[in-house]
């Protein structure tokens, strides 16, 4: 409902302010990623009107960017592997870092990563990693690994993400393979693992897996850390477990779309969010992993004490990232259709 109201207001915004093209910024971002209050504050401070729309997967973003007319969107927030893919397809504009005063706030370990070696096209916004969340009111067993989820006692009691790369990657990791394996034999084993695990799966849900955990629909979930952190806020008896298989890491980035019409406004927006106190507000509302050095000093004790929000560095360092596997994606797609 909230989304519908936002869309409606946006529509009003577009029609109302159409004539003043100079002072707008077209942002396309993940849903539930930046609180509305941040956008309002930015608009008030700069006089720029933000047209904000959302997507729920990198692939949806790619479809929107590649099918829309050049200049429709200015600022987007793709994840790591999607940045690489968009660079290859020439969809991004190189960033002029001299326009970003607050760029030095970013943590060094999130810069110059493989998907964009010199951060020519992107800068990190947030990071997230997969964790296992267990409701200790009902489950007392010791869980340390994805393999523990196969326990027949957990029948119909697990929620997983509805994301083929992450869930198949999880099976790959449980079996000791790379999350991104394309080896047929290994994927065959992953298929068996997932068919076995499916007996315990109540739902595949990427939108809001925490809801199933909070409403006692399931007692175990594998989800992105922010979802788990929010579930933990609701129910303190949820335990956060970092699977010994290392888990998955995803980094979302600022990027400017090729042919963007409001580049300067996009830089202003990025720079605004790079401010330590702005990032603090975002990260405390949506507790993902913070990539801003200066924000680190401001974070509330509530955030720091939340085990699912404040992820230890060693967990982040050992987690694997989704990689582009070219036409091998067909194997994953077929496997996904098979286990469903």
């Amino acid at each position: 409902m909230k989304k519908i109201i936002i869309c409606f207001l946006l529509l009003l915004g577009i029609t109302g302010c159409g004539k003043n093209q100079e002072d707008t910024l077209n942002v396309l971002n993940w849903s539930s990623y930046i609180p509305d209050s941040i956008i309002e504050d930015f608009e008030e401070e700069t006089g720029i009107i933000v047209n904000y729309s959302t997507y729920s997967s990198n692939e949806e973003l790619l479809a929107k960017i590649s099918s829309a007319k050049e200049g429709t969107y200015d600022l987007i927030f793709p994840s790591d592997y999607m940045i690489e893919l968009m660079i290859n397809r020439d969809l991004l504009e190189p960033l002029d870092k001299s326009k970003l005063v607050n760029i030095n706030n970013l943590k060094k370990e999130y810069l110059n990563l493989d998907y964009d070696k010199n951060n020519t096209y992107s800068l990190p916004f947030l990071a997230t990693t997969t964790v296992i969340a267990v409701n200790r009111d009902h489950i007392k067993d010791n869980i340390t690994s994805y393999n523990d989820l196969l326990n027949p006692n957990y029948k119909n009691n697990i929620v997983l993400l509805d994301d083929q790369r992450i869930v198949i990657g999880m099976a790959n990791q449980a079996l000791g393979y790379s999350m991104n394996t394309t080896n047929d034999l290994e994927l065959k084993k992953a298929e068996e693992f997932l068919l076995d695990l499916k007996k315990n799966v109540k739902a595949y849900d990427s939108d809001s897996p925490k809801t199933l955990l909070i409403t006692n629909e399931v007692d175990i979930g594998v989800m992105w850390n922010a979802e788990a952190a929010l579930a933990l806020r609701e129910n303190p008896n949820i335990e956060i477990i970092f699977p010994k298989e290392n888990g998955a890491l995803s980094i979302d980035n600022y990027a400017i779309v090729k042919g963007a019409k409001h580049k300067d406004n996009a830089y202003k927006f990025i720079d605004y969010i790079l401010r330590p106190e702005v990032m603090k507000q975002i990260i405390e509302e949506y507790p993902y992993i913070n990539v801003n050095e200066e924000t680190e000093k401001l974070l509330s004790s509530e955030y720091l004490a939340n085990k699912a929000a404040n992820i230890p560095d060693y967990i982040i360092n050992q987690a694997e990232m989704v990689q582009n596997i070219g036409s091998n994606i067909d194997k994953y797609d077929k496997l996904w259709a098979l286990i469903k």
Partner: protein
Amino acid sequence: MKDKLFKKIITIPVIVYALVLILLPLIYIFILSFLKSDSYGGVINVFNLGNYLKIFDMVYIKVFVQSFLIALVTTLICILIAYPFCLFISQKKKKTQTLLMALVILPFLTNSLIRTYGWIVLLRKEGVINTILLNLNIIDNPLSLMYNNLGIIIGMVYTLLPFMILPLYSSISKIDNRLIEASKDLGAGSMATFFKVIVPSTVTGLFNGSLMVFIPCIGYFFIADLLGGGKLMLLGNLIKNQFLTARNWPFGAAISITLLIITFVLVKLYKKTGGKMDDLGGF
């Protein structure tokens, strides 16, 4: 003459609409289905039949079969609910009939996605239905009403039932009462009258309604995702996945075209039973 010209002019927007928004995209999808994917969301211009052959892979045939089974069960349940309901309504006074039919259409005023979320509140483990039944000591353990195929069927039947009721009602309310009286006068019992007089004269409405329920049912992936827990892949999910996750637009296009052909065959069958095309979009 003037009248004819006027008619032509006012149909131009509709023709343009159909050409630009229906025919052109269809042609695009059709051509796309013979091309090759570059797996980065792009398309290589090489003619091949690979996408259609790929559909015959067991994995994808399974998806077809699953979808058709769900659609079939949904259609049958819709008939079982809608038929007695329409018979009941058609016996009422004209005013009551209008009111009851308005109530059938009323849910359309709310977006179906929101209504589906409403079902989650009712059906989940600690939802309204389970809480009531548990408190009344009717059950000892919460029932699994969703995150399984039952949830999908409940959602599908609920969402698509009006599409069965509307054509069936128009068909049933057209039955000439004198036929029923004649049948009774000639000594037929109510069972015989029902199966030999009422049912045959509503076949068109029945088939029309079935078509309107069966075909959308195959594509309503959001119901399978929300109420089925994303555990069952329907054709709608498969097509969506091809266009998004797998970035294989040509394969997605080929599945869509196949689905379209199946729809055409069903519509042809419908016409064979004496159905009119007007009735399909006619309410």
